[in-house]
């Protein structure tokens, strides 16, 4: 998943693909939307192409299947539609290059992944696309690699801060077993659990509206927000005394739309935000160059970021 276009997702994708033990694992790849173009559709900068080794299963649109630069066995034409034709499933017979254009929605991608089960795939790698953060949701993927870089912000400090905040959100603590059990199948509304463990529907249509009905609640212990968590809602909750010691639970980090300031003001020793599902962040990659010509100091960037997020940070081009 990339935080911005041109943060080096494809480069990272190829890097991982190149090193997978294909003899032992069956690997399937796809992307959300179009990926692997030779030049960027928006900024016209050179882009790496997706390179597949022999024996990789892949999903791409009919159009891109026909322009592939490798020999492949066509296994199936699925019913999943995209603007470039149905998604087809193939298996590479020789190494070569291909454009990947997978299902264009999270649900479509999930269906595709379910469909791939019949080929006994051990590992599926999805090339995420711009602003398709929801795809990284644990509902779809088990773990993720985050790509960030100069295209996201040209100032090292800002870039580190912004990236670190995203990492902080991805690493939010999992809520208690009990809460997970309670809220897992709840997909609508905002719910509160008070001191006596009784459940209240706050009758909030979405967290964009701040009219919450707190009748009968003296002190709220847990607040479950099924949809998006926004600044307005969190600030409103913060100002209401009954939420002084509340844990806000959201489905996963992709539902959080908070600025660092709101988050930091809300979370103190007594209040916290937790998630029902958590994805595992494996690594962070950086691309110090941006399409408008800015080149950041790669070593400094890696070190500062690594220090801030306590995770390994790689600049794949440099290493």
């Amino acid at each position, binding site marked *: 998943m990339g935080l911005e276009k041109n943060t080096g997702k494809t480069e990272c994708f190829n890097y991982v693909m190149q090193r997978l033990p294909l003899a032992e694992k069956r690997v399937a790849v796809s992307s959300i939307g179009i990926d692997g173009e030779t030049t960027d559709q928006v900024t016209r900068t050179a882009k790496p192409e997706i*390179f597949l080794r*022999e024996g990789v299963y892949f999903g791409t649109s009919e159009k891109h299947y026909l322009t592939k*630069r490798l020999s492949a066995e*066509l296994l199936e034409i699925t019913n999943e539609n995209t603007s470039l034709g149905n998604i*087809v499933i193939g298996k590479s*017979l020789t190494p070569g290059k291909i454009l990947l254009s997978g299902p264009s929605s999270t649900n479509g991608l999930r269906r595709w992944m379910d469909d791939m089960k019949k080929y006994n795939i051990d590992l599926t790698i999805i090339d995420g696309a711009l602003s398709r953060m929801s795809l990284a949701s644990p509902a779809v993927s088990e773990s993720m690699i985050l790509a960030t870089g100069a295209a996201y912000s040209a100032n090292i400090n800002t870039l580190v801060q912004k990236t670190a905040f995203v990492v902080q959100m991805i690493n939010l603590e999992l809520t208690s077993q009990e809460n997970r059990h309670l809220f897992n199948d709840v997909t609508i509304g905002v719910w509160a659990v008070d001191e006596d463990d009784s459940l209240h529907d706050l009758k909030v249509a979405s967290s964009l509206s701040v009219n919450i009905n707190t009748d009968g609640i003296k002190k709220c212990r847990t607040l479950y927000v099924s949809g998006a968590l926004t600044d307005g809602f969190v600030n409103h909750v913060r100002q209401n005394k009954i939420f002084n010691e509340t844990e806000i639970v959201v489905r996963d980090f992709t539902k959080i739309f908070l600025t660092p300031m709101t988050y930091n003001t809300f979370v103190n020793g007594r209040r916290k935000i937790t998630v029902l599902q958590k994805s595992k962040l494996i690594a962070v990659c950086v691309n110090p160059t941006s399409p408008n010509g800015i080149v950041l100091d790669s070593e400094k960037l890696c070190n500062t970021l690594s220090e801030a997020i306590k995770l390994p940070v790689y600049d794949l081009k440099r290493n």
Partner: protein
Amino acid sequence: MQLRKLIDSPCGLRFMIDNLCTHSGYSRKLLLESSMMHDRLSIEKSYEVMRKFYHVVDNEDNKNKIQTLQFKLCKLKDINHTLSRLATSVILDDIELFEVKNLALLSADVKLILEELNLNEIIVITSLEDVVKILDPDGLRIATFYIYDSYSERLASLRKKLKSKDFYQETIYNEVAALEDEIRNELSKRLKPYSDSMIVAMNALADVDLNLAKSLQMKEMGLCFPTLSSEDKSSYKGIFHPEVKNILEKENKEYQKVDIDFGLKPLIIMGANMGGKTIVLKTLALCQYLLQFGFGVPADSAEMMIYDEVFCLTTDDQSINKGLSSFAAEMKNIDAVIKSSDCVLALIDEPARTTNPTEGTALVSALVKMLQDRAMSLIIVTHYNIKTYNNKCLRVKGLIDGKMNYELVETHEGEVPHEALNIAESLGIDSRWIELAKKEMEEGR
């Protein structure tokens, strides 16, 4: 008339089509594009095929085979576009070759199952073994495709070279691509002569799917095979409307089936409100369409005539209000019946209901008089006390001990039942209103 154009007829044809469990989108497309049958021979022939399928479906021992067949038919795709391209000597790409190969393998699979079910002579699937041989040079019979190594030794050796390195080798791949193109060209040429037989096979597969789906629907809904009457007479025993029956069953209510006979003379149905008269009309229209599209008919038994056209003018026809007053729209619709050729089934629900009873009665009586000598089946539902010119009249039995009996019984001119007030009463309508109306009635006498 295509089924696509009739499907939203107010008689409830859509319910039947939507509940038809076809396994391929292509079969459904063919069904919707099919035209209403008008000749005895094709209708009889279509039921003959379906009887064989029904017989197979009705046998519990065939359950597994039927399921396998259904599973296979899911893979039937509409590849008319590819096949027409093939016929015009276009070079097919990998995806198209894959589609062709899948069709060829599928028809072989289905053919085999039909043989096991003894249906292979009922619907004959053209053998596409030659196509399979062209696209499956290694004889693997797997439904996947690529330009196989065995098509060319040169290709095999080039691919070996590509595989030996773990990076992209542009020049070698270019040669491979050129070679693959040549082979595709060759394959397309060899496949071209089979394009017609592939279309025939594809349509035969869709035919299997449709017959299977129709037979299963018959079994599930309790439909019957109609017989074509040899005289000008239609006769139904235990007719029912599947959609209404379905709704009632969901509410744990029972649907009362009715019997009805008619010929080429006008038939007038009178009777209480809420007596199911409109449903009878709709069911008759539905049955007629189902017969002429080769479906099972919702009745215990049905002996039916064939018509050129069916008019089903019911009070809830949405098209009635398109920019015209309800009276004008209705008059125009009935006018179309009068101007139609003979050999139509005209079902008219409460004609002239929106005008005053004096003129309304005159209009309906005149309609009966004018159409009684035409060779059409006219069925009219009315509340007016019309002149029937000795034509057959039926009425709904009506409320008996507070319970509605929907049975149709013969009645005579001038015996229009007066049950509206009783029925309104049983609905729990404000009693002051009903009492006043009763008084009005008495004063009027």
